[in-house]
């Protein structure tokens, strides 16, 4: 309970500091504030999909349904943060480029990540039997994840992009970021990451309870 309260206060404080304490970055103006939401969302999306793939590999190696619960929960939350990153990016694009959506390679990439993991959830829904579902979903999750670096790093280089790059300033450019902006940004990054792991743990506990209830109902049906 105390940790949850601390997390809530942490994110609220970082958001308020981003609006009231940190200055605006040169060239970005009021859109600087999107930085505190957009990049942490995209970061958590990457963490979530990596977490999902890692637990899929663990499931294939150990065959414990706990890993499948983790993989599914992480994929669901990854999609949620993917949508958050896309919406915040679209708002930024409207302010800076004049349109919400331009089919820029980065926008296209995030859209296809959404589709890949949406397909993962659709596949899970179409397979009967929890062991079979866990196994086939794990196979798809691994094959989906190995294509992600191509979408994230290679495709944007084949087509010209308006998206700011590099996202993280190179060495020597560190001075150009105001330390207050950096503090708010890192605080939001940590807050969002903690939020992801907390909600994932809730989702996993819920899946465990649902499985226990289904098994109890099946056992009661068998003895009746």
């Amino acid at each position: 309970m105390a940790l949850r309260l601390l997390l809530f206060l942490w994110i609220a404080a970082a958001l308020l500091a981003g609006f009231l304490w940190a200055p605006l970055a040169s060239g970005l103006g009021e859109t600087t504030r999107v930085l505190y939401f957009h990049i942490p969302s995209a970061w958590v999306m990457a963490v979530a999909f990596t977490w999902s793939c890692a637990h899929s590999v663990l499931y294939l190696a150990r065959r414990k349904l706990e890993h499948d619960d983790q993989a599914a929960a992480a994929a669901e939350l990854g999609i949620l943060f993917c949508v958050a990153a896309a919406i915040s990016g679209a708002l930024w694009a409207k302010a800076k480029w004049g349109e919400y959506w331009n089919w820029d390679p980065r926008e296209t990439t995030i859209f296809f990540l959404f589709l890949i993991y949406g397909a993962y959830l659709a596949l899970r829904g179409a397979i009967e039997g929890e062991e079979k579902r866990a196994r086939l979903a794990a196979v798809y999750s691994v094959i989906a994840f190995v294509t992600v670096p191509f979408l994230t790093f290679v495709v944007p280089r084949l087509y010209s992009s308006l998206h700011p790059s590099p996202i993280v300033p190179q060495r020597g450019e560190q001075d150009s970021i105001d330390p207050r902006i950096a503090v708010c940004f890192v605080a939001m990054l940590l807050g969002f990451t903690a939020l992801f792991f907390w909600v994932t743990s809730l989702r996993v506990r819920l899946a465990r309870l649902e499985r226990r209830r289904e098994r109890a109902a099946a056992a009661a049906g068998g003895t009746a």
Partner: protein
Amino acid sequence: MPPSGSSSVAAVWAILRKECRSEWRTRYGINAALLFAVATLTAVSFAVGRLPDRTDLLAALLWVVLLFAALASLAHTFVREVEGHTLTFLRLVASPAAIGIGKLLFNLLFLAVLELVTVPLYLVLMGGPPPRWGPFLLVLGLGSLALATTTTLVGAVVSQARGRGALFAAVSLPLLMVVLAAGVSGLRAQWEGNPAGPEARVLLAYVATVLGASLLLYDHLWED
């Protein structure tokens, strides 16, 4: 006892021959795919007319036609096994990797036949500039290999799910975006007289990654 190298090659060869023979007996897969490809090509050609100087559209539409035809047909090698209840017998005589590679080679052959009809017809109907055959065939060949590698594994997964027809396209397409992006960019580059080497390298890396992952994952596809 794990199968020796020579027995694995023999198993792959036997599966490839079996697939070719099954296809030759019914021919419904290749006939449907060819009809689908030609119908799509006709619709595209009728809608946009001849495109002698739009190399960007020429490259994109060729890959769209090939992708549609592939997605309409490449899952059928596994679906045929599931619907005919022959997969269990197949697993008794060959390892999962041998089954996967045998079916991958068949899908590749299937795509080659499809392209042998579709591509010349496309070039004639769309009236594009003559391609530089070396880079053109290199990009087309590597793109087809990438297409077959991905759809073979996804086909094996989806064939065990409900609603596999619609699901196969929905699950495969997002994974194939890299192939589509690199394939379109490569074909456009060769038509515009630019080197297609970077795109060929992307496709090669994609094939190596997906094929490597597939070889590790085939063992987990069938267990019950």
